[in-house]
């Protein structure tokens, strides 16, 4: 771990596996005029190392799938792809900033329908829009077709996450032009002090020539100083930019006995000067995930409880008995602005005082009933399946299907389809766990990529609700979300009741792995009141 001082002056502890590479970023910047194009800094807000936003859901009567590839710099252009069913004739998009709401958004731009689509409408629509400010945005996707016009808001965090180094070719071109400009300016000064003052018939006498040369010579260091000043200015802009690049805020973690104390340790990324309160997502103010960093053989999905009533409270929970080791810790929170972010930390767990059961499958907290813990906490200890099927704790079988028949490639849009079957092979009836039929977590083994998936994609319901509430005007005079106050005043509610009326056995997660490497996919479902976790080892190949 390293200590890092952020722009607010708050000294925070940054875990080593979150490789922001500040020093290398600066050094590369200095050499940027001559090095290859490389994108630096891959960390994003709502998740870690997984910038793209995926949404599957309804816009009115239309089932659509939206992919947003946010810019790496702000202001910048977000690329939006919308897949729509037959009957959809046009799709328009516009950016909605949290503070201004839909009424403060520009008029929507129609997206371009890709060629070769069906005459009945539908297909893939592509467009782009500008994200001008940093903070919580949502993309308003307006769909028009045979069933009228409807819209849906897809939240996206607008933060600067990368910076482009300069290509050698551009560096050389600019260096040549810069040299020409410098030399030209010196010569202009020299000519201005001498030859330009001559009458038509005059020639430059030695005295005048010497004087002009003297003026030209004086101009050289002055212009050089201006040039150095410009370079220092550039350095300072780069430094400022680098400091304001988004990086996951650190979690302050402290384990006292079996009680884990959790604190978001800074307000650096808070919009404005005041802290923006948290809102509950699926009834919880924080979703905390622990993944053992050595081998990912242990996984826990916990919901620390707020220990105070401040806008961003301290949390605590009782840690389940997990095998000893170093753990990557990811805490998902949503602010009342609709800004989603993942806090990151690292936790060392020593040998438990009581023997753990390493092979014990996912266990709902209700079975162990420890103090200061949420009943919806669940964890899993065991090996991930290297096949596409895994036997769950209750004997049922979870099957993973991926749309692409061959190896999964980085940056390719995938549909991760999960099917649970009973021991007799019949489709199992799933129950809702935390308001969803399945929760997925994708993590790269080195901890550099982490994302919390739902069937609706990478977005959170809470962020969507926050934008809708603001558009309805559910805010106080000070601009605070009324919903947030209500949620915050009440203790975090338990899991939503199961809805067995349309219980599915298959769930789909839309996702695109950001880069190649070894990943784990943890999928949590609920059957017969028991949370079951499947774990899959996935190898992602380089994008072709």
């Amino acid at each position: 771990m390293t200590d890092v001082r952020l722009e607010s002056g708050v000294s925070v502890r940054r875990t080593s596996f979150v490789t922001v590479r500040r020093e290398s970023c600066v050094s590369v910047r200095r050499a940027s005029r001559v090095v290859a194009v490389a994108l630096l800094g891959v960390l994003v807000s709502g998740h870690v190392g997984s910038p793209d936003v995926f949404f599957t859901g309804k816009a009115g009567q239309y089932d659509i799938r939206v992919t947003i590839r946010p810019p790496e710099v702000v202001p910048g252009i977000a690329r939006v792809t919308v897949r729509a069913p037959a009957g959809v004739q046009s799709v328009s998009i516009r950016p909605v900033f949290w503070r201004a709401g839909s009424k403060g958004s520009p008029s929507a731009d129609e997206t371009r329908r890709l060629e070769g689509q069906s005459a009945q409408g539908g297909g893939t629509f592509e467009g782009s829009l500008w994200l001008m400010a940093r903070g919580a945005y949502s993309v308003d996707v307006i769909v028009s077709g045979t069933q009228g016009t409807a819209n849906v808001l897809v939240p996206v965090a607008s933060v600067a996450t990368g910076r482009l180094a300069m290509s050698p070719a551009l560096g050389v071109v600019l260096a040549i032009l810069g040299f020409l400009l410098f030399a030209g300016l010196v010569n202009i000064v020299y000519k201005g002090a001498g030859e330009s003052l001559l009458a038509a018939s005059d020639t430059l006498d030695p005295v005048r020539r010497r004087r002009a040369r003297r003026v030209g010579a004086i101009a050289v260091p002055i212009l050089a100083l201006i040039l150095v000043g410009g370079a220092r200015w550039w350095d300072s802009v780069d430094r400022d930019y680098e400091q304001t690049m988004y990086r996951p805020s650190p979690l302050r973690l402290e384990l006292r006995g079996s009680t884990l104390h959790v604190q978001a340790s800074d307000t650096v990324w808070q919009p404005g000067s005041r802290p923006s309160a948290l809102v509950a997502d699926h009834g919880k103010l924080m979703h905390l995930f622990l993944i053992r960093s050595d081998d990912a053989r242990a996984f826990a999905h916990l919901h620390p409880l707020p220990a105070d009533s401040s806008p961003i409270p301290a949390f605590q929970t009782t840690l389940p008995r997990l095998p000893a080791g170093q753990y990557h810790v990811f805490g998902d929170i949503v602010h009342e602005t609709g800004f989603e972010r993942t806090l990151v930390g690292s936790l060392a767990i020593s040998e438990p005082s009581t023997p753990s059961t390493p092979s014990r499958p996912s266990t709902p907290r209700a079975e162990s009933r420890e103090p200061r813990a949420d009943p919806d906490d669940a964890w899993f200890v065991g090996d991930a399946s290297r096949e596409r099927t895994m036997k769950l704790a209750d004997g049922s079988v979870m099957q993973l299907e991926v749309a692409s028949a061959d190896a999964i490639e980085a940056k390719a849009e995938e549909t991760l389809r999960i099917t649970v079957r009973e021991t007799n092979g019949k489709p199992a009836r799933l129950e809702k766990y935390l308001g969803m039929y399945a929760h997925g977590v994708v993590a790269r083994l080195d901890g550099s990529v982490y994302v919390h998936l739902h069937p609706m994609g990478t977005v959170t319901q809470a962020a969507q609700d926050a934008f809708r509430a603001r558009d309805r005007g559910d805010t106080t005079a000070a601009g605070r979300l009324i919903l947030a106050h209500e949620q915050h005043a009440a203790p975090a509610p338990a899991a939503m009741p199961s809805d067995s009326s349309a219980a599915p056995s298959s769930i789909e997660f839309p996702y695109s792995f950001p880069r190649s490497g070894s990943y784990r996919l943890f999928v949590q479902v609920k059957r017969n009141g028991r949370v079951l976790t499947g774990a899959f080892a996935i190898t992602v190949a380089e994008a072709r």
Partner: protein
Amino acid sequence: MESVVPRRTTPKYATRALVEEAPSRSVPFSWHAPTVVFGAVCVMIGVYWDISWHMSIGRDSFWTPAHLLIQAGGLIAGLTSGYVALRTTFGSDPRARDAGVTFWGFRAPLGAWVCIWGCLAMVTSAPFDNWWHDAYGLDVRIISPPHSVLALGIGAIGVGALLLSLAWQNRGGEHQRRAMWLLLVAGAMLLMDRWIMLTEYSSKNLQHGGAFYRLSMLAYPMAVVMMAKASKMKWAATITTGIFTAFVLILMWLIQILPATPKLGPIYQPITHMVGMAFPVLIIVPALGVDLVMQRVQLRPVFLAPILSAVFLALFIAVQWPFASFLMTESARNWFFNAENFVYWMSPSGVEWSRSFQETDGLGPHLANAWGTGALSAYLGLWFGHWMSKVRR
């Protein structure tokens, strides 16, 4: 047999003498200076339009009319200057060669070289700025290194226009008056350039504060005094500032006619038409004072500059201070005075901020500083003006 050598009608050396005696025919490429001044005017209109575009619409590309006008103005000045340089270097017109300076083996008037330099700087700024947007985001800060290179290029086009007009004016001749007017137009464009550079520090609610007067005294006296010194017109400073004021006002009134809606968000102001820049500062009054002083007081620059600064500052405060008070009133909230030219992203708190004077520590503590800054600025104006009055090529 004795060969017959045709007798010269005039001695060889007489060519130059005749040229100087007949100045109406001694102006080679007489279209060049007006064309370059036209280019400079195009650039400044483009700059104004572009700023208004960013205030009203937001979203832009390389191909917006404002950008094209800026690039066109730069290209007009740069390419015509390049043409003049090639024709002068490789042509056989001795008048053209005599009106030029040698530059890396080529020959053209100094103003042409400055225009070519400015055009090159503008060209350089394009890929630099494009990379900058990709690296740090679109115009996170208006004053950035690539924008500074562009501003230098634009400034150079204005200086080039000034030098070409100057050389023509200083050489004299039948069309000297035309050159004098061109010079004043070019000077007005330079003044406008300075006014735009000070925009962020010149909000109406800052005009009772010391910083506004300090910065104004740094920027304006130099340009105004320089024009008064370099021009052969009697009321050069007043006319130059008059052209500047009229030009900016016409742009301000006209641009508000064009319909526009923001294409970027968040939007806090319901904009339906282009938003013009603020009402120009009233430097025409202190410029009149500068003209009067320079016509009546003959002193060395080091003594004259403090007097000019004092006169400039006193008259500037006398008119701008009450005018700023007026701009804060309801009576100024209309298209004519354009006091509430809010950009689309101006939040309600920003509106409140703009309606109350900032920097309320008073002007008193800043007066001496503003006067000293103005004296330095005026001295530089006298120095440059003196040099400019001697430029002949």
